[in-house]
């Protein structure tokens, strides 16, 4: 087992494209770290540099405290699960799992013991004699995991391992992977573009965009205290609603005001505890964000808007409204009596507004 340190890690591909831009990340021993971000943001590249499948263009990579930049992938004691499983088609499941162990010259008994153990964990004991092509997608996924588990590596790397499974199986495998991590207590580095997967699985999440790290934190923190506009928008579903407005102060009371098309300008009050931090933004344009579940309907003053469409999700309802030329979402309990075309008024729940610097797009803590 080992922690991983990325220091100013950079990847410049042969075509001079800088896919990973000097990132710094500390992954602790035994942690379940999820790298998440939109497609093309450099997650796979980062993972492959950790694996040693891709040369490091700049910076340093440490695994278990040792510099790994020039260490052959074979000598890193890392297992990797590929998105397309990459099972050897002409070998049985057993031989697929034994391949790495045989190379390490384990004796037959030990190989069998480890494979039986892994097969039991993954519930594929019945499949050991079959060829990969006789297996279902979920079973192949398990074999790919099994091939990694039997080696008892110090780090597991996984690149979107669930993306080829159907929705139901994916949810099930998610839970199984969390359980597996609990059982093994080994460092997991898990890549996904799916923020739900990241939120449910990671002990910490590293959000990436355009080759850079935007925030590293626990799921709770990422959700409640996003560092910047990108993380705020990327994490959470439905997406956070963003508004343009101005922050003003009147006798110690702070307000956010914004234009609202055909309706009167709206005005939310906001509690500010750190007056210094917001001082530079007073009476200037500012961006603020409110999550759909933190908006509520009111009969009093607030933001007036017309309902665009209503989306029933069973226990919840997503009410989509038109605000400042965008579609915003309000998530509320089932049983609302609204219908499309109705005009409604919404206000944020207290303390649930996120402020962002319109220039740097960084969050303003208040």
């Amino acid at each position, binding site marked *: 087992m080992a922690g991983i340190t990325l220091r100013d890690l950079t990847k410049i591909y042969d075509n001079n494209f800088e896919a990973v831009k000097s990132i710094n990340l500390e992954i602790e021993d035994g942690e379940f770290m999820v790298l998440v971000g939109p497609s093309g943001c450099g997650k796979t590249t980062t993972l492959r540099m950790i694996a040693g499948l891709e040369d490091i263009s700049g910076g340093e990579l440490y695994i278990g405290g040792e510099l790994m930049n020039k260490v052959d992938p074979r000598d890193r004691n890392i297992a990797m699960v590929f998105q397309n499983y990459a099972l050897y088609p002409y070998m049985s499941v057993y031989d697929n799992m034994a391949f*790495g162990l045989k190379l390490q010259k384990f004796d037959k008994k030990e190989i069998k013991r480890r494979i039986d153990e892994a097969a039991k964990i993954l519930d594929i004991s019945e499949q050991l004699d079959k060829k990969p092509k006789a297996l279902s997608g979920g079973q192949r996924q398990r074999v790919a995991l099994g*091939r990694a588990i039997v080696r008892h590596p110090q780090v597991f790397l996984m690149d979107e391992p669930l993306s080829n499974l159907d929705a139901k199986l994916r949810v099930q495998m998610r839970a199984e992977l969390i359980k597996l991590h609990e059982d093994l207590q080994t460092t997991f580095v898990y890549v996904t573009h799916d923020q739900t997967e990241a939120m449910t699985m990671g002990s910490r999440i590293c959000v990436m965009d355009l080759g850079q790290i935007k925030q590293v934190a626990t799921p709770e923190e990422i959700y409640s205290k996003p560092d910047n506009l990108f993380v705020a928008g990327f994490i959470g579903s439905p997406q956070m609603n963003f508004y343009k407005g101005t922050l003003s102060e009147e006798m110690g009371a702070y307000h956010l005001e914004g234009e609202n098309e055909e309706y009167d300008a709206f005005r939310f009050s906001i509690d500010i505890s750190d007056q210094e931090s917001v001082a530079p933004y007073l009476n200037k344009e500012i961006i603020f964000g409110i999550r759909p579940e933190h908006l509520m309907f009111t009969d009093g003053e607030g933001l007036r808007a017309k309902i665009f469409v209503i989306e029933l999700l069973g226990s919840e309802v997503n009410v989509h409204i038109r605000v400042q030329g965008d579609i915003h979402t309000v998530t509320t309990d089932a049983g609302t009596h609204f219908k499309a075309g109705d005009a409604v008024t919404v206000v944020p729940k207290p303390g649930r507004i996120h402020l962002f610097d319109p220039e740097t797009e960084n969050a303003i803590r208040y």
Partner: protein
Amino acid sequence: MNRLKTSTLFKIVMILYLFIILFPFIWVAITSFRPESEIWGSNALDLSEANFTLENYRLVFQTPILNSLKNSLIISGITTIYVTLVASLGAYAIARLDFKFKKLLTVIVLAVSMFPQMIVIGPIYRMFVQLGWTNSYYISLPYSNITLPVATFILITHFAQIPKEMEESATMDGSSKINTFFKIVLPLAAPGIFTAAIIVFIGAWNEFLLSLTLNTNEAWRTATVNISFLRGQFEIFWGQVTAATVIVTIPTLIIVILFQRQIVSGLTSGALKE
């Protein structure tokens, strides 16, 4: 309805095409069982009057055909083995490894196959005489100039089709490059290797010019050359020529029939997501 029509039309065209292609061979086979006197003349095309006989075969076996078949088999076998091996390594390097002048190298490999045989045969002959390699199995070496480029190109496409993850996965499992090549890549490329090997074998088996020039001693003649010697001073023994042709064709026919399945079968199915 439309599909049915096209497929019927397609079948008719294919059968006609097959017939046109196979007819010469079928005629050679038929001719080989007819007496020399019936092969030419007005009755040659009338099979109802034919007196089938094994005489041609009896006569052919009195010539050194068996020895020439043995030579062909050994020379083609050696050629197939080493050319396939060299082509595999070369094609893998071109398909997978990064190195300077890769494109240029690929073009040179292709260019080699474009030199006309008649141009290279002279220098090769001189070389062989000086090395004392005439009338020997060393003839397998220059055979590579016909077969190696083709085999390499067949294999490049096959290696390029193998998912990179398969090899990377092996690397992560602790496998060295060369071990990965033999344990993972070659089995996955087996259909391509069979195809390449068979094409090399057939190419070597049918080779004529090099064999005629370099292995002049009767004891070292290959089968194709041996056929060309089935003639008297003033005539060609067509009956024996056709019988020998049938005999020489049989090994290639057997190989293709035996390995047809391996050539066609998709060994990679089930390896990846579908």
